């Protein structure tokens, strides 16, 4: 080895959260601005910036930035909501559009070297998925009242199997938000670790 001053660092340094501005409310409520917060804000502002670029109501023949947003963000989410939720679910289209754009931009920014990917943390992606799950359940219970519990019984099954199946369905219903958040965090952090380890071989 000709060079003894090679920087040796841990592969997990890239996931470290550091407090940039200390901010404690009411004694110990920690609202510090971390690098995670900064990169989430950067993602929000990037999205807002791309939308303000063509805030002149759009044209029939799209301009460059308009077609970027229409093809990459608007069209996939539009067809997804129309196919899955149906026409009356279109009022949740803005929510899904902003969720998709936020996650897309935050994931793509995280790939740039020396940046930080907040979605690689379970605290962020799992918090997102569990709040969506709670929100959907509140919506369903306020709409169907207790009839929503019928959702735990699959259609076309003999009544004798009900006790076992309802238990399985309830468990799988509570596992879904966990797998939703964990999938995002695991995929992003595994990819970042793979890139770091492979680039240490160069």
């Amino acid at each position, binding site marked *: 080895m000709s060079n003894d001053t090679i920087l040796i660092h841990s592969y997990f340094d890239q996931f470290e959260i550091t407090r940039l501005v200390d901010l404690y409310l009411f004694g110990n409520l920690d609202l510090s601005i971390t690098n995670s917060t900064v990169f989430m804000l950067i993602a929000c502002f990037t999205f807002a910036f791309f939308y303000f670029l063509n805030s002149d109501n759009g044209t029939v023949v799209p301009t460059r930035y308009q077609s970027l947003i229409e093809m990459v963000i608007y069209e996939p989410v539009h067809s997804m909501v129309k196919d*899955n939720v149906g026409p009356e679910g279109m009022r949740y289209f803005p929510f899904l559009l902003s*969720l998709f754009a936020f*996650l897309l931009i935050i*994931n793509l920014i995280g790939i740039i070297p020396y940046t930080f990917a907040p979605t690689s943390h379970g605290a962020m992606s799992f918090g997102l998925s569990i709040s969506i799950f709670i929100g959907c359940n509140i919506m369903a219970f306020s*709409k169907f009242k207790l009839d929503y519990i019928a959702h735990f019984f699959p259609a076309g099954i003999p009544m004798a199997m009900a006790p076992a199946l309802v238990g399985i369905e309830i468990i799988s219903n509570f596992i879904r938000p966990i797998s939703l958040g964990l999938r995002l965090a695991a995929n992003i952090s595994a*990819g970042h670790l793979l890139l770091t380890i*492979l680039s240490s071989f160069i």
Partner: protein
Amino acid sequence: MLLMGGGIAIASIFPLFIVFFITILEIAVAMIQAFVFCLLTSLFLSEAFELH
């Protein structure tokens, strides 16, 4: 490997290629995961809209 000099430095072109293609793969993963998250969220929403 690049700092060791000689043949090993030339061989370091292979990890460089691998890292390049893994980066392309990661960009794809970033887009697909964002899409899958939204797809499953829309499935949650669709269950809140209709009982089967």
